[in-house]
Protein backbone atom coordinates (compact mmCIF):
# COMPACT_ATOMS: atom_id res chain seq x y z
CA UNK A 1 0.00 0.00 0.00
CA UNK A 2 1.36 3.38 -1.02
CA UNK A 3 1.71 6.03 1.64
CA UNK A 4 -0.76 8.85 1.02
CA UNK A 5 -0.10 12.24 2.60
CA UNK A 6 -3.65 13.55 2.23
CA UNK A 7 -5.13 10.45 3.89
CA UNK A 8 -2.68 10.78 6.75
CA UNK A 9 -3.32 14.51 7.24
CA UNK A 10 -7.09 13.85 7.30
CA UNK A 11 -6.65 10.96 9.75
CA UNK A 12 -4.76 13.26 12.11
CA UNK A 13 -7.34 16.04 11.82
CA UNK A 14 -10.36 13.87 12.47
CA UNK A 15 -9.47 10.27 13.35
CA UNK A 16 -7.12 10.69 16.31
CA UNK A 17 -8.93 12.48 19.14
CA UNK A 18 -5.95 13.96 20.98
CA UNK A 19 -4.27 15.23 17.81
CA UNK A 20 -7.57 16.76 16.69
CA UNK A 21 -8.13 18.31 20.14
CA UNK A 22 -4.75 20.08 20.23
CA UNK A 23 -5.18 21.21 16.61
CA UNK A 24 -2.12 19.33 15.37
CA UNK A 25 -1.65 19.94 11.63
CA UNK A 26 0.54 17.71 9.50
CA UNK A 27 2.40 20.04 7.11
CA UNK A 28 4.52 17.52 5.22
CA UNK A 29 5.48 13.88 5.52
CA UNK A 30 7.68 11.65 3.36
CA UNK A 31 10.71 9.33 3.67
CA UNK A 32 12.79 12.33 4.75
CA UNK A 33 10.67 13.14 7.79
CA UNK A 34 7.46 14.67 9.09
CA UNK A 35 6.73 18.33 9.81
CA UNK A 36 3.80 19.44 11.95
CA UNK A 37 2.37 22.35 13.85
CA UNK A 38 0.30 23.00 16.98
CA UNK A 39 -1.25 26.49 16.88
CA UNK A 40 -0.89 28.41 20.13
CA UNK A 41 -3.73 28.31 22.65
CA UNK A 42 -3.93 29.82 26.13
CA UNK A 43 -4.84 26.38 27.54
CA UNK A 44 -1.33 25.13 26.73
CA UNK A 45 0.42 27.69 28.94
CA UNK A 46 2.58 26.26 31.74
CA UNK A 47 3.69 29.53 33.35
CA UNK A 48 0.92 32.15 33.41
CA UNK A 49 3.38 34.85 34.46
CA UNK A 50 5.46 34.52 31.29
CA UNK A 51 2.89 32.94 28.93
CA UNK A 52 5.34 30.16 28.04
CA UNK A 53 3.74 26.83 27.02
CA UNK A 54 4.04 23.73 29.22
CA UNK A 55 6.56 21.09 28.19
CA UNK A 56 3.70 18.59 27.96
CA UNK A 57 2.35 20.12 24.76
CA UNK A 58 5.86 20.06 23.24
CA UNK A 59 5.98 16.36 24.18
CA UNK A 60 2.63 15.72 22.47
CA UNK A 61 3.89 17.36 19.26
CA UNK A 62 7.27 15.56 19.23
CA UNK A 63 5.80 12.18 20.23
CA UNK A 64 3.17 12.41 17.48
CA UNK A 65 5.63 13.29 14.71
CA UNK A 66 8.23 10.77 15.94
CA UNK A 67 5.74 7.95 15.50
CA UNK A 68 4.42 9.26 12.19
CA UNK A 69 7.76 9.88 10.48
CA UNK A 70 8.38 6.10 10.41
CA UNK A 71 5.21 5.30 8.44
CA UNK A 72 6.40 6.34 4.94
CA UNK A 73 9.50 4.12 5.35
CA UNK A 74 7.51 1.00 6.14
CA UNK A 75 5.83 0.85 2.73
CA UNK A 76 2.88 -1.24 3.83
CA UNK A 77 0.89 -2.42 6.75
CA UNK A 78 2.83 -2.11 9.99
CA UNK A 79 2.27 -0.67 13.43
CA UNK A 80 4.66 1.13 15.75
CA UNK A 81 4.75 1.38 19.54
CA UNK A 82 6.94 3.87 21.39
CA UNK A 83 9.68 2.29 23.52
CA UNK A 84 11.11 5.54 24.76
CA UNK A 85 11.32 9.22 24.01
CA UNK A 86 13.92 11.61 25.37
CA UNK A 87 13.30 15.33 25.16
CA UNK A 88 15.91 17.99 25.86
CA UNK A 89 14.46 21.44 26.46
CA UNK A 90 17.02 23.73 24.84
CA UNK A 91 15.50 27.12 25.58
CA UNK A 92 12.17 28.55 26.80
CA UNK A 93 9.46 28.79 24.16
CA UNK A 94 8.50 32.33 23.14
CA UNK A 95 5.06 33.23 24.54
CA UNK A 96 1.96 33.04 22.34
CA UNK A 97 3.71 31.66 19.26
CA UNK A 98 2.77 28.50 17.35
CA UNK A 99 4.85 25.37 17.86
CA UNK A 100 6.42 23.46 14.96
CA UNK A 101 8.41 20.23 14.86
CA UNK A 102 10.37 18.27 12.29
CA UNK A 103 11.29 14.65 13.05
CA UNK A 104 12.89 11.94 10.91
CA UNK A 105 13.70 8.24 11.24
CA UNK A 106 17.49 7.94 10.95
CA UNK A 107 17.66 4.15 11.28
CA UNK A 108 15.11 1.44 10.63
CA UNK A 109 15.85 -2.21 11.38
CA UNK A 110 13.48 -5.18 11.04
CA UNK A 111 12.02 -4.58 14.52
CA UNK A 112 13.13 -1.15 15.72
CA UNK A 113 12.98 2.42 14.40
CA UNK A 114 15.19 5.21 15.75
CA UNK A 115 14.04 8.81 15.37
CA UNK A 116 15.26 12.28 16.13
CA UNK A 117 13.98 15.77 15.58
CA UNK A 118 13.44 19.25 16.92
CA UNK A 119 10.62 21.51 18.04
CA UNK A 120 10.89 25.17 17.05
CA UNK A 121 8.92 28.38 16.62
CA UNK A 122 10.24 30.99 14.18
CA UNK A 123 13.59 29.37 13.30
CA UNK A 124 14.33 25.64 12.88
CA UNK A 125 18.05 26.40 13.39
CA UNK A 126 17.29 27.80 16.85
CA UNK A 127 15.11 25.00 18.27
CA UNK A 128 13.36 25.02 21.64
CA UNK A 129 13.61 21.24 22.13
CA UNK A 130 15.35 18.15 20.73
CA UNK A 131 13.82 14.67 20.73
CA UNK A 132 15.30 11.18 20.34
CA UNK A 133 12.98 8.19 20.24
CA UNK A 134 12.94 4.44 19.68
CA UNK A 135 9.95 2.43 18.47
CA UNK A 136 8.99 -1.22 18.13
CA UNK A 137 7.89 -2.04 14.59
CA UNK A 138 5.41 -4.86 13.99
CA UNK A 139 5.10 -5.79 10.32
CA UNK A 140 2.02 -7.66 9.24
Amino acid at each position, binding site marked *: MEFDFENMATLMRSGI*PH*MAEVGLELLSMDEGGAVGKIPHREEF*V*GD*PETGVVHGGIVT*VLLDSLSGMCIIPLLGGMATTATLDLRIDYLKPAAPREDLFAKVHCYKLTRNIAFTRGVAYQSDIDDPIAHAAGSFMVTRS
Partner: protein
Amino acid sequence: MKLKLSDGINAARKSGELQPFIQAVPYFRWLNLRAERLGDELITTMPYQDMLIGNPVLPALHGGVTGALLESAAMISLIGAMEEPILPRIINITVEYLRPGRAEDSFATGIVTKQGRRVANVRAMAWQGDRAKLIATASAHFMMT
Protein backbone atom coordinates in the same frame (compact mmCIF):
# COMPACT_ATOMS: atom_id res chain seq x y z
CA MET B 1 -9.07 36.68 38.70
CA LYS B 2 -5.83 35.37 37.34
CA LEU B 3 -4.12 32.99 39.74
CA LYS B 4 -0.46 33.62 40.24
CA LEU B 5 1.93 30.73 40.04
CA SER B 6 4.16 32.07 42.81
CA ASP B 7 1.14 32.25 45.17
CA GLY B 8 0.32 28.63 44.34
CA ILE B 9 3.89 27.55 45.04
CA ASN B 10 3.94 29.50 48.31
CA ALA B 11 0.68 27.86 49.36
CA ALA B 12 2.11 24.46 48.49
CA ARG B 13 5.15 25.12 50.62
CA LYS B 14 3.19 26.39 53.63
CA SER B 15 0.28 23.94 53.70
CA GLY B 16 1.53 21.01 51.66
CA GLU B 17 -1.59 21.52 49.52
CA LEU B 18 -0.72 21.37 45.80
CA GLN B 19 -4.14 22.11 44.29
CA PRO B 20 -3.68 25.94 44.30
CA PHE B 21 -0.49 25.48 42.28
CA ILE B 22 -2.25 23.17 39.80
CA GLN B 23 -5.12 25.64 39.43
CA ALA B 24 -2.62 28.38 38.54
CA VAL B 25 -1.28 26.44 35.53
CA PRO B 26 -3.60 26.60 32.47
CA TYR B 27 -2.25 23.35 30.96
CA PHE B 28 -2.86 21.44 34.22
CA ARG B 29 -6.39 22.85 34.42
CA TRP B 30 -7.02 21.81 30.80
CA LEU B 31 -6.00 18.23 31.66
CA ASN B 32 -8.12 18.41 34.87
CA LEU B 33 -5.10 17.31 36.92
CA ARG B 34 -5.52 16.82 40.67
CA ALA B 35 -2.85 16.21 43.26
CA GLU B 36 -3.44 14.47 46.56
CA ARG B 37 -1.16 13.52 49.39
CA LEU B 38 -1.25 9.85 50.25
CA GLY B 39 1.12 9.17 53.12
CA ASP B 40 4.54 10.36 51.97
CA GLU B 41 3.50 10.52 48.36
CA LEU B 42 1.91 13.12 46.13
CA ILE B 43 -0.30 11.35 43.64
CA THR B 44 -1.26 13.26 40.48
CA THR B 45 -4.49 12.11 38.84
CA MET B 46 -5.36 12.69 35.18
CA PRO B 47 -9.09 11.87 34.87
CA TYR B 48 -10.06 10.10 31.66
CA GLN B 49 -11.43 12.26 28.85
CA ASP B 50 -12.23 11.07 25.31
CA MET B 51 -9.93 13.76 23.91
CA LEU B 52 -6.88 12.04 25.49
CA ILE B 53 -7.13 9.09 23.08
CA GLY B 54 -4.30 8.67 20.57
CA ASN B 55 -5.28 5.25 19.22
CA PRO B 56 -9.04 4.91 18.75
CA VAL B 57 -8.73 1.27 17.58
CA LEU B 58 -7.34 -0.18 20.85
CA PRO B 59 -8.40 2.38 22.33
CA ALA B 60 -5.29 3.79 24.03
CA LEU B 61 -4.21 7.14 25.46
CA HIS B 62 -1.93 9.31 23.31
CA GLY B 63 1.68 8.61 24.33
CA GLY B 64 2.47 12.31 24.38
CA VAL B 65 -0.17 13.00 26.99
CA THR B 66 1.15 10.12 29.13
CA GLY B 67 4.55 11.82 28.86
CA ALA B 68 2.92 15.13 29.82
CA LEU B 69 1.36 13.48 32.91
CA LEU B 70 4.76 12.10 33.97
CA GLU B 71 6.45 15.47 33.47
CA SER B 72 3.67 17.18 35.44
CA ALA B 73 3.76 14.61 38.27
CA ALA B 74 7.57 14.87 38.45
CA MET B 75 7.30 18.64 38.83
CA ILE B 76 4.40 18.49 41.32
CA SER B 77 6.24 15.95 43.51
CA LEU B 78 9.39 18.08 43.33
CA ILE B 79 7.53 21.25 44.39
CA GLY B 80 5.98 19.25 47.26
CA ALA B 81 9.47 18.29 48.44
CA MET B 82 11.22 21.67 47.99
CA GLU B 83 12.44 24.03 50.68
CA GLU B 84 12.40 27.16 48.51
CA PRO B 85 9.34 28.58 46.74
CA ILE B 86 10.64 28.55 43.17
CA LEU B 87 9.32 27.15 39.91
CA PRO B 88 11.61 24.34 38.76
CA ARG B 89 12.37 24.49 35.03
CA ILE B 90 12.64 21.24 33.13
CA ILE B 91 15.99 20.45 31.48
CA ASN B 92 15.16 17.05 30.00
CA ILE B 93 12.99 13.99 30.40
CA THR B 94 13.16 10.42 29.15
CA VAL B 95 9.84 8.59 29.05
CA GLU B 96 9.77 4.79 28.79
CA TYR B 97 6.51 3.31 27.60
CA LEU B 98 5.67 -0.06 29.16
CA ARG B 99 2.08 -0.78 28.09
CA PRO B 100 -0.73 1.12 26.37
CA GLY B 101 -2.73 3.48 28.58
CA ARG B 102 -6.35 2.33 28.56
CA ALA B 103 -9.40 4.60 28.33
CA GLU B 104 -9.59 5.23 32.08
CA ASP B 105 -8.17 7.47 34.81
CA SER B 106 -4.37 7.60 35.09
CA PHE B 107 -2.21 8.25 38.14
CA ALA B 108 1.42 9.28 38.54
CA THR B 109 3.90 10.16 41.22
CA GLY B 110 7.50 11.32 41.35
CA ILE B 111 10.43 10.47 43.62
CA VAL B 112 13.08 13.14 44.05
CA THR B 113 16.19 10.99 43.66
CA LYS B 114 18.62 13.90 44.10
CA GLN B 115 18.05 17.51 44.98
CA GLY B 116 21.15 19.55 44.53
CA ARG B 117 21.49 23.32 44.79
CA ARG B 118 21.15 23.84 41.05
CA VAL B 119 19.67 20.65 39.63
CA ALA B 120 17.16 18.05 40.82
CA ASN B 121 16.75 14.52 39.45
CA VAL B 122 13.25 13.05 39.63
CA ARG B 123 11.94 9.61 38.70
CA ALA B 124 8.26 9.32 37.90
CA MET B 125 5.89 6.43 37.28
CA ALA B 126 2.38 6.23 35.89
CA TRP B 127 -0.27 3.54 36.31
CA GLN B 128 -4.01 2.98 36.00
CA GLY B 129 -6.15 0.44 37.91
CA ASP B 130 -3.29 -1.73 39.16
CA ARG B 131 -0.29 0.09 40.54
CA ALA B 132 1.91 -2.97 40.01
CA LYS B 133 1.31 -2.62 36.25
CA LEU B 134 3.03 0.64 35.35
CA ILE B 135 2.07 2.08 31.96
CA ALA B 136 5.15 4.33 31.74
CA THR B 137 8.10 5.61 33.74
CA ALA B 138 10.27 8.70 33.34
CA SER B 139 13.51 10.21 34.51
CA ALA B 140 13.83 14.00 34.47
CA HIS B 141 16.21 16.81 35.41
CA PHE B 142 15.00 20.19 36.63
CA MET B 143 16.92 23.44 37.02
CA MET B 144 16.35 24.86 40.49
CA THR B 145 17.85 28.34 40.09
